[in-house]
């Protein structure tokens, strides 16, 4: 049993911060973080709208008017659910492409990798 779960000390690795405190992401700038959250929210809106459009198309194909109640009553088959999941994942991958690109670039960049452990506390600089 180690002692670093001592909840009486905020400096320990036990209870780390006080109620209401906002944990800091090292190197993060508030405006960039806000934009990232907005991009994430907008991506979700696009995905929801795509799903609704898909429901409308399927209802129309089956000869039903896409009314609020018919949309709410629509129960997609497991195949349709799987198709929508795949389309959603593809949408997310397209929007987030630049993030993956930066991670992949780092994995190929020995200089950047060495900098991660050879220098200390660069994240706050």
């Amino acid at each position: 049993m180690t002692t670093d779960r001592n909840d009486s000390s905020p400096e320990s690795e036990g209870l780390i911060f006080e109620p209401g405190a906002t944990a800091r992401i090292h190197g993060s700038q508030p405006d960039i973080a806000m934009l990232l959250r907005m991009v994430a929210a907008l991506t979700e809106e696009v995905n929801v709208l795509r799903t609704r459009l898909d429901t409308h198309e399927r209802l129309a194909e089956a000869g039903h008017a896409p009314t609020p109640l018919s949309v709410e009553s629509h129960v997609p088959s497991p195949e349709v659910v799987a198709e929508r999941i795949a389309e959603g994942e593809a949408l997310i991958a397209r929007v987030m492409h630049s993030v993956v690109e930066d991670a992949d670039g780092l994995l190929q960049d020995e200089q950047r990798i060495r900098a991660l452990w050879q220098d200390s506390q660069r994240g706050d600089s």
Partner: protein
Amino acid sequence: MSTMPKTMPKTEFATDLSVTQAGDPSRAHPMMPFTRHDEAARHAHVVAFKNFLMRQLEPRWRTLIDEKVAPQMAQSGRDAATEYRELEKNLGTVPAYRAWQTLMVAAQDEMWRSVTESVDHSLPELQRIEAANAALGSVRINPEFKAPRYLTAVDIHRMPGGYHADQGEGDLRQGAIFDKAAALYHMGRNGGAMNDLRGHTIAQHFFDRFESMNAENPPKRILDLGCTVGHSTVALAQNFPHAEVHGVDVGAALLRYARARSASLGVSIHYSQQSAERTDFADGYFDMVVSSAVLHETSAKAAPAIMRECWRLLRPGGVMIHLEVPLRFDASAWNRVRGWFESVHNNEPFWIGAQKTDFAGLAAQAGFAEVCAGYQPSVRQADPTAIPRFTSTPGPVHVVWYMISGIKPQA
């Protein structure tokens, strides 16, 4: 052509959804909150986004730290796993890593927000279903109860209101939110919308390790500590149908919902609002006491106290089983960095401490015999006749669970 009206009175939504979603596997049981069309699409998006962050992007960080940084540091005589705090700070120079952290937090917050939207319009119908099943099981709420600080200081998992939020008599909201979100949180890997994989895995662990006891004297009284909405408790009751099953937790709304959920599944369970450190049950009342992913959310003072309480509650020869998340016992450098993220940004204050805690040692200190810690492969349905698979070989979370179990010695 449909003759359906263009608009529908808001108050009719829940009733209509209860019909249209009757066969929807994502609902799993009658008390599961209802989802409107766009809400279901949001929930699917949250899962897909979490999948992207945790299964597409996160493996790159593991490669970076464990396969590139750690070996380089080792060549210089340094240990990346020890220096995880420095590494975590330095990762702040990587734009994609900063983005990953921000988006992980955003996805978690959106999970709770979007689920709450569904719960709030479902509550009238859920209260009707609860009342219709009022006779099955019981719930004891203690108005004087004060949840321990280690569960209230921060909203664990960033769930607004944490486990303990309660709006008073009859309130089910926090339980409904927790239940609906759990399947999204586990991305369906804890037994789909039932979230009972861990409960069945605990039962399987009992069958694997204590086969003769099950054959000769199966548990007649079972207690689930930190039961939340009864995900594992119901599975235990189903595996031991003749047992009297109890569950304790700190949140009144969680427990009211737990009873209603269990009853809607035809299962009688007795829930009570108590601290796992000190309950009001008599000495030696139970044959088996279990917990499911609870210990890592308790403090250094509480974890040994819970072990001692398990010892007090068990009859001589009774069995204690704690299930925990296996990843925390992976000592790789990335797992330490990831653990720090979990502690600080997902409000898991004791995650790092739990990674380093010898829970089997605590069990032995509390007086348990035949204490064993290892990995139990997950099962969707426990089977007392299955070949035992409890092992010392670790595996990924949801595929296996870390188990700590022991017996209270005969006097």
